């Protein structure tokens, strides 16, 4: 049996039935990485000996005992490199574990490898990494999506059974859609961000990628919860996020937002998503037409708020305490300016400038304050919608995976493609992407993602609905031909 084909739940079952061991599993995945990653380029680094040692002593009675989990390069793991795919943090070694990592370890999991991403999580294609270009396993001439492109590609290429990523405006759901796997953005406050390199603090959430919704629920069980190191993490009663799995769609009210089916989206994506919606209806779901009237403003609001917060968060990268420092600075100001000029890539600089501008004296009210007010209108759209429906069903991305290099010179076009994922972050709600079909393009099959959005802190129900769809769709069983 080839262990790389198994889901987290299946691996766990095999460990516990004594069919194979965590050592067998880590060896199988390492062999797969060695075989395909020279093509895919999802991993920045990994320490096999350390993972093997952890597998040898793994306690398989724990909730994630002995399961290898790949980690986006923006989450600190004690003793490992953590660069956010930026030159600025080249050589940095994490002096501590992020809370999600200590929780994964406590659940018996083995964090394995550093996964490539857009620098500081800014981008939708992973082309903004300072180190390498990650390729879509379904067609290696195309991007895997971003910013958590390495996390999505590694799962899609069967290099690890699951990974962690982060989602500020779609950075988990969009690459999951483009790579044909499942990606969950939990509600704001569900998961601690302590040890996540901050991009936009009012939007960032850490979440899992896996081949199935069940696996994502298992991972969320491990990483969710209040953490005294992150005051935005919520103190909620313990919850089993697998509790809603295994049900059907009878009587489930699914909202179809008319603003998410627009001209300009790829008609083949639209057809796939509409077919999936019909399938849900045939399985007993009740379809409800809804409106999210402020959708057209979401991208603008996001690129004001996210860049404003980023310009403040990234001020810490000044060459003083960690990472690179420009050589022979003539004074402190020269050191700051040249360190940042040399260390940051173009997209990061562009966003820092935009964020600094919208916060600057004389412009704050016109841009930042106004964006925060429109954010309130976007939140209210969702609150009104969730009065009528259990979840919203819509496309994850308007496009299929596009060719590497196609959009790098046109940032506005890249930003506009985030239209269907961004509002969930602004509203603080939860959302996930599941595979709903493939489209043939240039002789290759390219995956399409179906997005389910749930109200804030309604993950158990959301995961249940996505799992029910998955059971009737069968798309999760398809993998990239590599």
């Amino acid at each position: 049996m080839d262990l790389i084909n198994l889901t987290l739940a299946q691996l766990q079952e095999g460990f516990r039935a004594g069919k194979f061991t965590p050592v067998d599993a880590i060896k199988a995945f390492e062999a797969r990485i060695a075989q395909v990653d020279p093509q895919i380029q999802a991993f920045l680094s990994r320490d096999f000996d350390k993972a093997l040692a952890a597998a040898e002593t793994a306690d398989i009675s724990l909730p994630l005992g002995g399961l290898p989990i790949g980690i986006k390069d923006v989450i600190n793991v004690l003793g490992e490199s953590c660069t956010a795919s930026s030159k600025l943090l080249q050589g940095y070694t994490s002096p501590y574990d992020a809370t999600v990592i200590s929780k994964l370890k406590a659940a018996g999991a083995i964090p394995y490898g550093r996964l490539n991403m857009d620098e500081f999580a800014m981008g939708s294609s992973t082309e903004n990494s300072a180190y390498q270009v990650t390729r879509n396993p379904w067609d290696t001439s195309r991007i895997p999506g971003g910013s958590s492109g390495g996390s999505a590609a590694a799962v899609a290429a069967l290099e690890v059974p699951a990974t962690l990523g982060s989602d500020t405006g779609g950075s988990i759901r969009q690459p999951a859609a483009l790579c044909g796997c499942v990606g969950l953005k939990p509600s704001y406050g569900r998961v601690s961000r302590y040890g996540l390199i901050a991009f936009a603090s009012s939007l960032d959430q850490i979440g899992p990628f896996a081949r199935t919704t069940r696996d994502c629920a298992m991972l969320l069980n491990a990483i969710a919860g209040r953490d005294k190191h992150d005051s935005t993490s919520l103190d909620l009663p313990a919850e089993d996020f697998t509790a809603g799995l295994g049900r059907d769609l009878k009587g489930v009210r699914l909202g179809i937002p008319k603003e998410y089916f627009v001209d300009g989206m790829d008609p083949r994506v639209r057809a796939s998503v509409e077919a999936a919606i019909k399938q849900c209806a045939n399985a007993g779901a009740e379809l409800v037409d809804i409106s999210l009237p402020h959708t057209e403003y979401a991208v603008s609001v996001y690129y004001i708020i996210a860049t404003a917060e980023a310009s403040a968060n990234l001020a810490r990268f000044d060459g003083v305490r960690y990472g690179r420092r420009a050589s022979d600075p003539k004074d402190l100001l020269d050191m700051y300016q040249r360190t940042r000029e040399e260390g940051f890539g173009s997209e990061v600089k562009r966003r820092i400038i935009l964020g600094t501008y919208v916060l600057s004296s004389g412009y704050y009210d016109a841009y930042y304050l106004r964006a925060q007010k429109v954010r309130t209108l976007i939140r209210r759209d969702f609150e009104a919608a969730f009065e009528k429906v259990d979840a919203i069903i819509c496309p994850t991305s308007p496009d299929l995976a596009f060719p590497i290099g196609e959009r790098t010179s046109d940032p506005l076009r890249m930003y506009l493609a985030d239209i269907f994922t961004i509002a969930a972050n602004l509203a603080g709600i939860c959302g996930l992407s599941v595979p709903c079909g493939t489209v043939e393009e240039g002789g290759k099959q390219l995956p399409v993602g179906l997005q389910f959005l749930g109200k804030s802190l309604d993950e158990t129900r959301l995961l249940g609905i996505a799992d029910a769809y998955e059971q009737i769709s069968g798309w999760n069983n398809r993998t990239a031909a590599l």
Partner: protein
Amino acid sequence: MSTPDLNVRNVARLARLALTDEEVTVFQGQLGRILEHIEHLKKLDVTGVEPTAHTSPVFNVIREDVPGESLDREVVLKNAPRSANKLVVVPKVIE
């Protein structure tokens, strides 16, 4: 208003970024187009709408001000580009 009055070089100075002339030109064009796009927000009437700074239902989280565990100083200083005497070294600040 076609292009809002963004002066990339001035803003870069505020952000402590030393840009090349080429970067200034490219960013000026790209950010100009992005700001033009953002202008549509001004059409909306937001009178009386409260701003949303974040979506958490929790405000003003406080705790006892007691010393806790810190990271190991030597481990932390290993990441500093320059250090000496258990301190981070930077260019001279005061003449």
